[in-house]
């Protein structure tokens, strides 16, 4: 600890901190633009100049390390003169367009110019003009306003992992821009808007739609990936206008993925269902809530009576709230069925009944940064959990060695220590090899009988060197037909290494689903069987089976064939209009209270930030009324908090019962097929809300799926990149464009799931055929 003085105030600061950090800790604000606590120090704006005793010149507080006994003056004549001088220089070429600038009211330059700017401009020359750049559908530019602080550039390099922005030219011709005609395509690109201290980079979807001071700011939690990023949702007249990150160092830090930032556009989709609807004689009719609910209660009771309660099944979205999931479970079980599941894209349920607890990240999110060795198994991480990928990048910057086992050589924008890229069917065997190799290196017994390949050996060698290793199973591994085996092997490896082991969890409530018991507890059917063994009646909570299920084709067929399909959703889709019998408008996350349990087991409850649209009602309330109408016990909740407290036994910060262990042994088996499908769930197709966010749908990540193969596979099939091809799985087929993808192993075809263009295909894994169309 060092003793220093800032403006006469004595304080103790840690060695290695800078003057600006010390000052901010002491509550003394030092004006700054280029400095940002998460980015490297540039010291280029010079706004933070302060006086330091014995220094002849003012020093930049952001770049000056504290020394013992240092005396800093942030408001002395020297300091203020320097700061004012810098402010004048910043303003000379800055346009005077605050009245039409989207940043108005939340602009650091505007704020500081009030304190440090001069009243009359001494600069009477012509101002510089900088042409705008097209950064893509999410970020809008007014580059004349840019003050060259380079925060956005440093963000793309250091946090997003790829230098998409740079500063071209020099002197006052310097321009912050992407490479010629390139857009910014990072999945976390929107953060540059927050980082930009002026109005040079603003939100394209939000542009000109509201002034910052007209907006109400409410806290919420992101409903997409397992991270549970904290949000500030800004509304105007009960319409969500913008979403910003709420800083939480343990979760999203100060960042937000583009998905979490822009999916709000889907809330205002024209597909919003605003009134209950009932299909009568093949025709859809709007109905009053009580009529619709009566209809549902009758229908469910009828099916149960005629065909037995097991004829009723429920599919629940893993993005539903904890409370909705719990009440859906209670409802189904109240009727007498155990047929409910939220694990819609999972295909292997072999560990059901053998698990020691709910699968989870196996560590705190923030602990990822500390890992010194990482093995990532089966994950399109940047697209599954953009901010976790960012954390791995930070770990790597600090020297952590990252290893990968996957079916696609996805660029994580981080240097890898070792990797093994194999067809999906080979993943379990490969992981087994790593277990074997690591056991040998650690001189531990291992009963796996596999021959260890060179990549497996390299991965094991990297892992055993660590003292704080982590093994992470991605969504792809969880969706894998041998997901159970992969998990058991990962656990085994973790024991050998003394490492942490976790499952990333695809959705906002992937852990919450277990906690809420939205899955079979006894003899009920799991998600796969609910599709494979069609039910007479389905309750679909926020689910679009034709896009959300592991086998969308079978799922669609199942609901189409059912007598009664009850849809609870904020949206109506063309598909649902066909298969559903009743559609009940339930609130999206912004219009209801509820909770998500994140991948680290953290319970995060939130309130509605806007009034429900039209006659929309919160899902938990709808389910409560249904329970009552069905004369089931225990539906007398006053609030969603009541529901939550019942599930969690109070309001713990983290849920109990998290455990990745399973009483099972691994038996890696490879069913080698001719051509194997590699299916990813593209970032912006993953759930019903994001699918309806127009700006995200314009990004590169939302491109129509292609049939991607490496050069060898293409050649073997006699297909050229760009050719239209017919892709077939069983009876299902889709015509897609063939695309060269060097990141795939031989004999694999990458065809994205969760998209209308591929919904007619079968399961996400397994054999697939490709022929010229």
């Amino acid at each position, binding site marked *: 600890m060092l003793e220093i003085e800032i403006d006469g105030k004595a304080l103790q600061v840690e060695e290695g901190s800078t003057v600006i950090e010390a000052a901010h800790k002491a509550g003394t604000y030092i004006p700054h633009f280029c400095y940002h606590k998460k980015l490297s*120090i*540039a*010291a*280029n*704006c*010079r*706004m933070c*100049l302060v006086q330091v005793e014995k220094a*002849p*010149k*003012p020093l*930049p507080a952001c*770049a000056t*390390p504290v020394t013992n006994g240092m005396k800093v003056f942030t408001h002395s004549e020297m300091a203020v*003169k*320097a700061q004012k*001088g*810098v402010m*004048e*220089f*910043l303003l*000379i*070429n800055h346009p005077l367009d605050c009245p039409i600038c989207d940043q108005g009211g939340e602009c650091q330059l505007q704020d500081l110019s009030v304190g440090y700017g001069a009243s009359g401009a*001494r*600069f009477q*020359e012509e101002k*510089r003009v900088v042409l705008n750049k097209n950064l893509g559908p999410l970020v809008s530019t007014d580059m004349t306003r840019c*003050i*060259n602080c*380079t925060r956005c550039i440093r963000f793309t390099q250091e946090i997003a992992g790829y230098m998409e922005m740079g*500063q071209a*030219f*020099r*002197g*006052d*011709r*310097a321009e912050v821009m992407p490479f010629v005609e390139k857009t910014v395509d990072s999945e976390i690109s929107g953060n540059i808007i927050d980082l930009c201290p002026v109005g040079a980079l603003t939100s394209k979807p939000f542009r000109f739609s509201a002034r910052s001071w007209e907006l109400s700011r409410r806290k919420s939690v992101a409903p997409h990936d397992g991270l549970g990023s904290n949000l500030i949702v800004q509304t105007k007249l009960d319409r969500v206008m913008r979403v910003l990150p709420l800083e939480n160092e343990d979760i999203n830090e100060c960042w937000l993925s583009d998905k979490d930032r822009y999916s709000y556009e889907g809330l205002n989709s024209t597909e919003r269902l605003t009134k209950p609807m009932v299909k009568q004689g093949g025709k859809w009719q709007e109905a009053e809530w009580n009529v619709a609910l009566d209809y549902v209660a009758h229908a469910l009771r009828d099916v149960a009576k005629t065909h037995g309660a097991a004829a009723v099944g429920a599919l629940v979205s893993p993005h539903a709230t904890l409370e909705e999931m719990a009440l859906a479970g209670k409802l189904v079980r109240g009727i007498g069925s155990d047929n409910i599941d939220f694990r819609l894209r999972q295909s292997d349920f072999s560990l059901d009944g053998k698990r020691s607890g709910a699968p989870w990240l196996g560590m705190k999110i923030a602990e990822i940064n500390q890992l010194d060795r990482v093995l990532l198994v089966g994950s399109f991480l940047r697209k599954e959990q953009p901010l976790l990928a960012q954390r791995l990048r930070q770990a790597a910057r600090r020297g952590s060695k990252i290893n990968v086992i996957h079916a696609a050589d996805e660029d994580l924008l981080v240097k890898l220590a070792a990797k093994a890229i194999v067809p999906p069917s080979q993943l379990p065997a490969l992981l087994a090899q790593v277990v074997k190799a690591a056991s040998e290196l650690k001189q531990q017994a291992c009963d796996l009988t596999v021959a260890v390949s060179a990549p497996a050996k390299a991965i094991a060698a990297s892992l055993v060197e660590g003292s704080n290793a982590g093994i992470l199973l991605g969504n792809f591994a969880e969706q894998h037909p041998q997901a159970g085996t992969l998990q058991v092997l990962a656990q085994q490896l973790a024991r050998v290494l003394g490492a942490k082991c976790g499952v990333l969890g695809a959705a906002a409530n992937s852990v919450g689903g277990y906690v809420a018991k939205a899955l079979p507890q006894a003899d009920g059917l799991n998600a796969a069987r609910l599709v494979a063994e069609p039910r007479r009646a389905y309750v679909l909570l926020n689910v679009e089976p034709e896009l959300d299920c592991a086998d969308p084709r079978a799922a669609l067929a199942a609901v189409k064939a059912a007598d009664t399909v009850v849809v609870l959703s904020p949206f109506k889709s063309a598909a649902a209009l066909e298969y559903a019998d009743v559609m009940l408008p339930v609130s999206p996350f912004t219009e209801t209270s509820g909770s998500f349990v994140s991948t680290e087991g953290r319970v995060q409850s939130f309130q509605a930030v806007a009034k429900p649209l039209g006659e929309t009602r919160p899902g938990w309330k709808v389910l409560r009324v249904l329970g009552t109408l069905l004369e089931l016990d225990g539906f007398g909740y006053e609030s969603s908090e009541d529901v939550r407290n019942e599930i969690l036994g109070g309001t713990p910060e983290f849920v109990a019962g998290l455990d990745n262990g399973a009483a099972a042994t691994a038996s890696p088996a490879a069913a080698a097929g001719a051509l194997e499908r590699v299916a990813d769930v593209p970032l912006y197709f993953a759930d019903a809300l994001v699918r309806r966010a127009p700006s995200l749908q314009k990004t590169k990540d939302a491109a129509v799926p292609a049939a991607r193969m490496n050069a060898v596979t293409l050649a073997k099939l006699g297909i050229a990149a760009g050719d239209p091809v017919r892709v077939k799985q069983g009876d299902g087929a889709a015509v897609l464009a063939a695309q060269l993808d060097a990141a795939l192993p031989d004999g694999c075809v990458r065809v994205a799931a969760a998209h209308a263009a591929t919904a007619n295909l079968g399961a996400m894994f397994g054999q697939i055929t490709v022929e010229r169309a």
Partner: protein
Amino acid sequence: MAIIDAINATLTAGWKGDAGWNLKEYEARGGYQSLKRILTGDKLTPDQVIAEVKLSVLRGRGGAGFPTGLKWSFMPKAAPVKYLVCNTDEGEPGTFKDRDLLAYDPHSVIEGMIIAGYAVGAVAGYNYIHGEIFELYERFEAALAEARAAGYLGQNILGSGFNFDLFAHHGWGAYICGEESALLESIEGKKGQPRYKPPFPASVGLYGKPTTINNTETFAAVPLVFRMGGQAYLELGKPNNGGSKLFSVSGHVNKPGNYEVPLGTPFAKLLEMAGGMRNGRKLKGVIPGGSSSPVIPADMIMDCTMDYDSIAKAGSMLGSGAVIVMDETVCMVQALERLSWFYYEESCGQCTPCREGTGWLYKIIHRIEHGEGRPEDLDLLLELGGNIAGRTICALGDAAVMPIQGMLKHFRSEFEYHIEHKKCLVPREVQKAGSTFHTRMMAGAAC
């Protein structure tokens, strides 16, 4: 070939122009003897080498005049990987000495670098060569090939067990890369934007490793220090100003060129060596140390001797030893306008005061030169200068301001005249007469 002359030639002794740059010629004039003495003859330790350089009080020839031996002693001993860098990015207007050094005596720079590499424990060195003199980059590569073939570079140099290799890296048109940390960025394959210091290159330099950077002339003087002995080298110059120095004399003299004189030589003597004032015109002022040093008016400079202290006393800097001589045909407003344009053009663009300020300064001076000056402009220039100098990452900010301060200190009335009369004190025709090219052009037109 520019004119090269010397009083008591040491550094330039034996130069034979383009014919004498190669290894054979260099060895014939005693080249690589110092290296042999250090590595295989007297077997000096690195510490002994540094001590000798300290004794010589060889001060850096790149501009700041920092004692070279002291700089070398800052390199951390234990670091396994260290680098050495030579700064031949000579771009300070008025300076052209390093060019001649590379043209006529590249091996002296190579020998100096090997000795320095040995002293600081570097694994490799790079010479960063100004892009505009690309032919000399090629020549330097040829010289390196000769040195490598002769066993002066590479593994186990002269059988001493010392390993060191040297490479050439070229600039491509950016004055700022003469600033040492910008130069390092540039070698790293980035744009040349100076780094914030501390940390200094001696602790975090090239590729993040401890690095010593010296000017070309500094390295070229090192073999000399060992050939003559540190004490003798020091005595060549003045106390605290060891050795002789190359002065690049340009502008209105009859014989522009490089002149090697002992530090402390009177300016008048230097002017005389340079053939005196062109066409016998009257001296108006001298920029004594490259374009960023403040101008010294005629009467003052005639009393100066050419060394760090005397020039500093006159309110300027010896800098890189670039002496720009201006006669009475010069309009100081126009001269300053051109220099201000230079700094505006060359600002790297990262610091707000420099990026925005250099342009503003230029625009004001440009207005004055073009008859649109305002009375308050001169004070504004000084005040803006005060808001730039000392507020930036590198010294380019200061460099842009100093010429203005110098001009306004000594030639303010000429600026005031410009503002008031919207034209120059020195008539255009007189200004043109100062240019030899113009005179010849007119002469050509006449016949």
